[in-house]
């Protein structure tokens, strides 16, 4: 194809050519083109199909408001659906395909839908497809779903990377048209930190699309000069290709910068950056969007917005056609005729709905006053238009202008409602703007160039003065107040053909009237019932005309009829950009234990525990499955000694004169009298009396404690303690600091634990059972002077210690412990063996402390002191929480020892039907006990502590199993605790 529609001028680099393809057809364009301008230059008028009726559609606008020209850009995993051809910067090798058609674009098999349109009016689907019931999911819905949607995802992982960032400024200027440039310039010259962002790749806004002069220069040249000045200032950050998409609380804005979308290859850099901009003040200079007029068959390729036609001609050196008729209700439309005529394009007529003289004198122009377009001809491209008086005019392009809507979107992202201005026939920003925002230029209803420049300057001046800057004096550039009157004229009532409002969702004037007839009269009902404004363009060109027609139906004014709420984002934002780097294995950070490297070198399999990676087991050669490894680790630990990295438990350093009394308040059991050198198990309750967390706390000295928490709750417990310290008992001298990562802590468990540790702990520390009994603790040194902490505590039920050294020595410590344990056949064990041993011992863990169980349920009701002030003890005594028939934590073993108990099974009495009314409780944790040679479980069952020896059914319909289990003590191993005291 050749560029048949190129005309003179424009800001494209004609010296260079760019090759691209559309639907496989090779075409050429120039740097500075968008895909849309290049398609038009190549004479490609049909570019897509509409959502519902599959009507042929062409390019309608020249910006991000485009409803029609959505393409799939690129291919393979890079395929990007629903991309507006009007915003895609042309690059060499670009490939795009049209979407939403079956068969070729020109001969869409789904186009038959259009013939059925009388039966597919707004909301038709609410009234049918109900019989027979099963057919909805099996037949109707799949057909509807397949024909709905627009573009296609590749179904492959997004291959590009994305980044995020944070920017701060005194003044954020949104939009780099005439008012935005003046605002930025004014603020920047005064020394304020300024960010100027614009969605376009060329800054200048409409200045680039118009022939209006500023300071006797071409507008585009003036813009370039200002941009150059701003670019040279170090207090200014220019952000082209950046859409400020949302106004959030307290001056925070979301912005998307497209970094590599205009390149064939991202070159390993992030494709886009999602910025969070913290501004002290903002000027919204987002310009305005032209709206169409509704008339019969106004959706044909070739029917375009007049301002867009002008933009293609002036900025891109392209005319959309050879015979460009204009249909307008305002002065601005005339400039399209003037600009194109000046470039030699034939203008068959300017049809003005007003009965008024031409606002611009165009030699030889055919001006048809007080008239309107009623219908068009040309299925795949406009051929002619028919006026209300019946005359037919040949034209391949119709430039339509229904007036301009200020882009008020961001002013409404919080609580603002726009206000109607009769003189403009448009909504302008209301009084209730987001904090710190002011609006300038066309976005504020200043629709002429001179007004926009002046308002940009004045608004920025006021904004920075409020921040304490003294504006430097700058002359307002000279420009004209071009004619800009308009008429409220929304649709051509004489048209009997369908007249489109929402081009993408195929909502017509008739649909709005039907919506009225059926009672969907509030604006939100209109939107939801007809889908007006819900397409990818969010009704940027459709909403106001739709509203106007509803107002006609109801006999109310437009502002009485209402306006829909604009919500972020201003234009759609890729999910990848919103997620930034947080995907794949970078979704969340990894926390590694100090002995991670040792574990890796020694065959560990790792498991995610919150953000931690922990060794789950250490497989040895010859072992057939994880159970072999875990059974061995348990047996070797129980027979001799095992070592486990338990660093992940939360550790909180508690110091202060009131530390003991503080702990006494946050634990349910007593801590005030814990002797120095001792450890105590502590149970924390929530204020509502439910068990929250447990752990051990050691008293190192009078005013110094070390608390441990569960791995899962470390952060939450710390937060609660700070709450207690600052908000509940603010005059206690107590100080908290987390040391979780600071100490590498290892459990050394098993009958040989003491013998092993004697080899590591330095001489002079008496390790004997008498000197260092169960629940003793102390600061010791190991390996020749290394400061360490030693706790005689046991989670496994064995003679056990936990020894802690500074974390940077942790990997080495693991190695040392294993070397020292060699003679005892010491084994490293992972979280699985740890879990098996704690179940054998009957210790509650996460599955039991799940936020739904009380101390009463856990069999620890008596630990909850009622003789002191502590969190949770009062509400823990509510009658429903201490019922006699409450569930109690007990052990379970299969009656048939070869049966496997399953966590999540529910208990049902032997003779009862398995249903919810007969539910007795549930199994929380299970394990195969190598020590007992069968499967065991812990669980909650009603009155469990009174039912020892009773047999109940553990039902598991989910997995189709049911076994009989016997209620037993939760302490399967060493119930008297002789081993851990040995």
């Amino acid at each position: 194809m050749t560029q048949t529609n190129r005309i003179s001028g424009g800001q494209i680099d004609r010296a260079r050519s760019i090759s691209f393809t559309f639907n496989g057809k090779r075409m050429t364009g120039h740097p500075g083109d968008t895909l849309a301008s290049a398609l038009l230059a190549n004479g490609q008028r049909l570019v897509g199909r509409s959502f519902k009726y599959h009507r042929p559609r062409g390019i309608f606008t020249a910006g991000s408001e485009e409803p029609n020209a959505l393409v799939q850009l690129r291919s393979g995993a890079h395929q990007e659906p629903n991309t507006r051809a009007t915003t895609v910067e042309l690059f060499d090798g670009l490939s795009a395909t049209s979407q939403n058609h079956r068969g070729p674009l020109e001969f869409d098999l789904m186009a038959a839908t259009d013939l059925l349109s009388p039966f597919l009016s707004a909301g038709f689907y609410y009234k049918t497809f109900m019989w027979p019931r099963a057919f909805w999911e099996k037949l109707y819905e799949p057909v509807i779903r397949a024909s709905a949607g627009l573009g296609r995802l590749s179904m492959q992982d997004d291959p590009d990377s994305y980044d995020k960032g944070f920017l701060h400024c005194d003044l954020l200027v949104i939009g780099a048209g005439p008012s935005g440039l003046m605002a930025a310039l004014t603020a920047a010259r005064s020394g304020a930190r300024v960010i100027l962002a614009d969605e376009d790749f060329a800054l200048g806004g409409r200045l680039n699309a118009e022939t209006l002069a500023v300071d006797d220069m071409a507008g585009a040249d003036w813009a370039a000069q200002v941009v150059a000045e701003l670019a040279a200032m170090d207090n200014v950050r220019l952000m082209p290709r950046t859409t400020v998409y949302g106004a959030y609380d307290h001056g925070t804005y979301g912005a998307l910068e497209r970094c590599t979308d205009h390149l064939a290859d991202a070159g390993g850099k992030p494709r886009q950056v999602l910025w969070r901009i913290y501004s002290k003040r903002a000027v919204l200079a987002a310009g305005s969007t032209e709206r169409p007029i509704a008339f019969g068959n106004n959706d044909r390729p070739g029917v375009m917005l007049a301002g867009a036609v002008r933009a293609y001609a002036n900025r891109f050196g392209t005319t959309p056609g050879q015979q460009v008729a204009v249909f307008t209700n305002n002065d601005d439309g005339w400039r399209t005729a003037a600009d194109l005529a000046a470039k030699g394009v034939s203008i068959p007529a300017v049809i003005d709905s007003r009965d008024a003289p031409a606002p611009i004198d165009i030699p030889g122009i055919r001006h048809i006053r007080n008239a309107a377009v009623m219908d068009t001809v040309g299925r795949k491209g406009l051929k002619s238009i028919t006026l209300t008086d019946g005359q037919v005019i040949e034209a391949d392009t119709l430039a339509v202008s229904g007036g301009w809507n200020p882009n008020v979107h961001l002013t409404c992202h919080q609580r603002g409602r726009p206000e109607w201005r009769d003189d403009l026939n448009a909504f302008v920003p209301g009084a209730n703007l987001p904090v710190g925002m002011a609006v300038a230029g066309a976005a504020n209803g200043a629709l002429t160039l001179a007004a926009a420049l002046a308002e940009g300057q004045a608004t920025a001046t006021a904004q920075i003065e409020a921040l304490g800057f003294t504006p430097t004096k700058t002359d307002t550039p000279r420009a004209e107040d071009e004619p800009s009157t308009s008429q409220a004229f929304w649709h051509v009532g004489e048209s009997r053909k369908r007249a489109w409002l929402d081009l993408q969702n195929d909502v017509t004037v008739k649909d709005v009237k039907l919506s009225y007839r059926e009672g969907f009269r509030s604006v939100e009902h209109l939107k939801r019932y007809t889908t007006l404004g819900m397409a990818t363009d969010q009704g940027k060109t459709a909403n106001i005309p739709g509203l106007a027609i509803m107002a006609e139906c109801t006999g109310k004014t437009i502002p009485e009829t209402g306006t829909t709420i604009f919500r972020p984002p201003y234009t759609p934002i890729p999910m990848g950009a919103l997620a930034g780097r947080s995907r794949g294995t970078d979704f969340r950070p990894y926390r590694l234990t100090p002995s991670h490297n040792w574990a890796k070198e020694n065959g560990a399999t790792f498991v995610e525990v919150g953000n931690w990676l922990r060794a789950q087991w250490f497989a040895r050669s010859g072992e057939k499955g994880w159970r072999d490894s875990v059974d061995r680790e348990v047996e070797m630990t129980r027979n001799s000694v095992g070592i486990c990295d338990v660093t992940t438990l939360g550790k909180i350093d508690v110091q202060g004169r009131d530390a003991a009394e503080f702990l006494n308040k946050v634990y349910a059991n007593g801590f005030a009298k814990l002797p120095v050198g001792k450890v105590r198990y502590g149970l924390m309750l929530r204020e509502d009396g439910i068990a929250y967390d447990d752990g051990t706390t050691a008293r190192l000295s009078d005013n110094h404690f070390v608390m441990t928490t569960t791995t899962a709750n470390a952060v939450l417990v710390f937060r609660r303690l700070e709450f207690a310290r600052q908000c509940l008992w603010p005059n206690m001298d107590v100080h908290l600091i987390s040391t979780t990562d600071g100490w590498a802590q290892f459990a050394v468990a098993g009958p040989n634990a003491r013998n092993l540790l004697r080899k590591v702990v330095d001489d002079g520390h008496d390790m004997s059972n008498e000197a260092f009994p169960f629940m003793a603790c102390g600061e010791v040194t190991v390996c020749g002077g290394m400061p360490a902490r030693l706790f005689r505590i046991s989670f496994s039920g064995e003679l056990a210690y936990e020894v802690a050294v500074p974390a940077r020595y942790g990997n080495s410590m693991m190695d040392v412990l294993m070397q020292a344990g060699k003679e005892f056949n010491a084994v490293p064990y992972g979280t699985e063996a740890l879990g098996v041993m704690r179940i054998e011992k009957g210790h509650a863990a996460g599955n039991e402390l799940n936020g739904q169980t009380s101390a009463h349920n856990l069999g620890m009701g008596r630990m909850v002191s009622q003789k002191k002030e502590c969190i949770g003890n009062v509400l823990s005594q509510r009658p429903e929480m201490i019922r006699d028939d409450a569930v109690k934590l007990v052990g379970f073993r299969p009656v048939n020892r070869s049966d496997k108990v399953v966590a999540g099974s529910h208990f049902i009495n032997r003779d009862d039907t398995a249903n919810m009314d007969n539910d007795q409780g549930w199994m929380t944790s299970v394990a195969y006990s190598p020590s007992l040679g069968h499967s065991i479980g812990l669980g909650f069952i009603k009155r469990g502590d009174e039912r020892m020896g009773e047999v109940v059914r553990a039902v598991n319909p989910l997995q189709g199993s049911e076994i009989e289990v016997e209620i037993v003590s939760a302490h399967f191993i060493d119930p008297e605790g002789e081993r851990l005291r040995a």
Partner: protein
Amino acid sequence: MIINHPLLGPRDAAEFIYLGDAALIDRPDWQAEDAMQQFHDYAYLRDNPAGPHQELWYHEQGDRSWLVVTRDTTTHDITDVQLARDVARSRGRDK
């Protein structure tokens, strides 16, 4: 949102954890005769106004201070921020 920390200046609210009604400072007397009723009201019946709300925020990704923030729940406008410890003391909390 931005919370203007009394010691550290404006910080993104994302650094904070929200708890709720600042009345959670006013923990009842555990030995009161109607302690159960008081604790019920304390734990379950919080202020939930459509308008200015005194509420507790915790600067978890910061200095670990608890703050009492006065914020309008209909506009999110913040009019006052104080260290919760100071507020607690002024409300008579002690040890």
